[in-house]
């Protein structure tokens, strides 16, 4: 009856192994967000239908929806090969990253490299209150 015992042991091992896989699968699937997925589906359907939402409402501007319009205006007013210093709130760092990304291929730099810039754009910082700048959407722009 050695083979019968071996068979039972084998079945038990297989059962535990299958159970382990099930637990692992359930654990992995724990990050699934059905409500968010449904919302994304609706949003995708809307945008494919031609109803694009304003850029400020995009997830990338979760930290400050007004910032998108500011960057879009800076982009409109500066040539593609310009160096633009962006003086923006320091936190979160997405302020700077979005500026570099949205203004590309312009060379966007921080405050400390503003001497190299042909334009200085300020957004919600004390520097934005200085004289001489041109008011733009949600900020000011200086041409040097």
């Amino acid at each position, binding site marked *: 009856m050695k083979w019968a015992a071996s068979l039972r042991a084998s079945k038990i091992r297989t059962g535990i192994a299958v159970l382990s896989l099930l637990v692992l699968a359930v654990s992995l699937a724990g990050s699934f967000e059905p409500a968010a997925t449904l919302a994304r589906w609706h949003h995708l359907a809307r945008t494919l239908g031609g109803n694009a939402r304003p850029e400020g409402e995009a997830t990338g501007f979760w930290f400050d929806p007004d910032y998108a319009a500011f960057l879009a205006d800076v982009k409109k007013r500066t040539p593609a090969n310009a160096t633009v210093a962006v003086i923006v709130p320091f936190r979160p760092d997405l302020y700077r990253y979005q500026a570099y*990304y949205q203004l590309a291929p312009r060379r966007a730099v921080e405050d400390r490299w503003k001497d190299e810039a042909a334009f200085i754009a300020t957004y919600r910082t004390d520097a934005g209150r200085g004289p001489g700048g041109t008011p733009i959407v949600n900020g000011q722009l200086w041409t040097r």
Partner: protein
Amino acid sequence: MTLVVAFARALLGLLTAFGAGVAMSRAFTGGLTRREKAAWSLSTGLLVQALCLLVLLALRVTPRALNLLCLEAVVAGAVLMFGRRQAGVGVREESLKVSGWVRAFVVGLAVLAVIAWLVFLVGALSDAMWATDFIAFWGYKGKVIFLSSGVPRRLFEDPALYFAHREYPLLVPVSLAALASFVGEWNDQALAILYPACALATLLALSGFLERRVSRLAGAVAAALASLCFFLYRPGNAGTAEVPFALGLVLVCCAAADAMRPEAGTNAANVARLAVAGLFCACLKQEGTLFAFLVAAAMWWSLRRAPARRRRLGVAALVIPPSLHWAALYLLRGNQTRRDFDMTLFEPRRWLDLPPLIALVLGRMLGTEARQSAVALAAIAAYLFMTRRGILDPFIPVFAAQLACYAVAFSVSSFDPMYAVDGAFRRIVMTLFPAFALVLGARVGTFGAAYRVPEWDHQSSEPEAIPDAGESSSLFSRRAGGPHGAGMTGKIRKWIAS
């Protein structure tokens, strides 16, 4: 341009890459399953497309859809005309025979994987890519390359781009720029199509490889497990290198596992797959080079009784392409300081600072990440304990070593190591999961099986006489009840299978 048109053009770009990849990979994917071929075609095609874009940029030709299409067609045509097709060794041709309930279970798992993939597809395409890493460097570099029609030196030299990881490989940015050339504009929503495509290729590679080497059920289990990894396949990872990198890791493991088969010998197709997978991994992320080197070390150890030429060839195929890539990148970008790491910690005068830092990082990993994933880790441990050795088991130390390297890297982080662990550890580790699913899936073939250690015997005149444990003794394997099922164990297996 409407979003639908942008998506259609991006898809055309992907299909062009895929087509070029089909032509190129035809030389070394003979005998693989169709799903594996599709995965190899996409990865090879992405490499070819990136290279074509760089050629156009070097020639100062503005990359457009037509330019890229023509160049890739020329490359594909030349390869088809002059290339030689070579089948991999050890590919089985017999049809699969599985019982009805196993077939139904496989179909169920496949449906589950497709649904999970669709969830990722919707998530990735529903919004413009927004991950911080995408905005700060992957997407930023791609956008600069596309809009400047070149690779400006400032990407590597501008001190203002101190945050942009100038030392990182460029396949993701260049691939995004190539797709943007097809779209005709930088549309960061349409370009996201790259990510579901890579996820799909990963699932296809997993299921195809394990079906060929172990069983159909093993492939379906691994693909379903990987597809459920929603922490990796989530909208926040669209735009980063994680999802393509997971594909690269899977391909490296598949290629290495094929090359380690006793009957593989020095087959050129196997060696080519190793080289392509290693290069693909290295071009995506820095740790891709590390993974390729670790897999090469595992191969070196596993093939220790194999002929020296075969061992050297296999390892060289995995090590040389990533090294050449590193050298080429070094020439392009120059010597870059690694701002992420405080390398002075490796100097002898600071060696004593290291152990407390490593202990701190390990404590954090165990105290937060491991604790949160305790159930999943316990399930993996139980599964590994209850199942027999599989054909991918030689790679388990590779995953452990990769994790150890991550721990050391976090310990020497220039920033707060705790912040680095909390912010990046789980994301980085999850990229390993699809490749690890190969290890788990390979053990499905050993359920209820008698234990037998796979062993290389280079003196054997009949390689099939020394099969892998995951193949020879599999309850659900395509050879269940076959010639290796002799003796009492074989009878028991036949009885269970019936």
